[in-house]
């Protein structure tokens, strides 16, 4: 099995997961690389109980949690990412709206509404029950609509 080929199929969405959850391109790149590094180490233990996509996302989730643990003081005090002035207007609003959400809500929306994971896959990846995740997603979408407006 060519690991590189398998991982490459998920490279972009893992990067997007970190980019849209953290709002920092460099950090997203580092954590995406860390995710695949850990995936290499645990590839032999992957038993195929879930899809490769869910497995890789579950690793990415742990990398994100570890990242927050390490950087907790800074993350709690740092302001939400501000959109760059060169971005197109509509997109800036969406990004700003996402950045204003709590991390858990942002993560749920990024997984399902940005990347396109099914709620079940996302629930598997973060280790929640499908129902619990649906509740979280529902609340996250509500929060997003409140922040962004109701155009979408």
């Amino acid at each position, binding site marked *: 099995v060519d690991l590189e080929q398998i*991982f490459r199929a998920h490279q972009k969405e893992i990067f997007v997961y970190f980019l849209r959850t953290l709002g920092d391109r460099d950090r997203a790149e580092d954590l995406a690389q860390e995710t*695949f590094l850990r995936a290499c180490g645990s590839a032999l233990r992957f038993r195929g109980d879930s899809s490769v996509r869910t497995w890789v996302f579950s690793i990415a989730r742990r990398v994100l949690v570890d990242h927050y643990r390490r950087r907790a003081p800074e993350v709690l005090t740092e302001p939400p990412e501000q959109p760059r002035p060169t971005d197109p207007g509509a997109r800036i609003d969406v990004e700003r709206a*996402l950045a204003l959400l709590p991390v858990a809500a942002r993560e749920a929306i990024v997984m399902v*509404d940005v990347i396109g994971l099914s709620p079940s896959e996302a629930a598997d990846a973060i280790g929640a029950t499908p129902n619990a995740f649906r509740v979280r997603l529902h609340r996250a*979408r509500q929060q997003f609509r409140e922040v962004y407006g109701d155009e*979408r």
Partner: protein
Amino acid sequence: MSVEGPIEPPLRLNELADVDSPEVVRAALSRFRRRTVVWSLWIVGALVAAFLLLPGYTSLRNDPHVLLARSPGTVSGAVIHEGPVQATVFEVVRVNKSVFAIHLFLTDSALKPEEQLTALNVTGMYSGGGLVPPGFSLSAGKSVEVWSVNRPGSPVVVIPLAIVTTVGRDLPPLRIDLQQLSIPSWIWR
């Protein structure tokens, strides 16, 4: 809270996924390979160190029994009589470039109870290994296993013997002619 009823419409934010992704997989795989190599080297190093530092292993290396047993040589079985002493040449081995050794069993054949045989330039062995200091005494009716450690060059090995008693009595030395015993010359030469 449960989410029942019609399926909630997605937010359709998939345009946010339209970004240029950097190459992270190849970098991760390279890092993994490097890390694997480093770990492998550490593990191999640790194993080698553990193996070398094992006390049992080092004591084994220093054990003269093991050292002599591992040396190449030949088994003789020749018996030499000298006065009250019977010497059985069990084996002769070449320990290294500068040493060869004769494995002997010395048995008294005619010592009186008050007499004690003394042999010089031989090395006895404790039962647990380790060499006793050169020279030993053999009491009447007993036998002892000894090694005579010698420098190569001559086929004749001389082990001075004496009987210690209340009345001293000198004996001729014990002569072992390895050439005569058909011991290959590469061992003693």
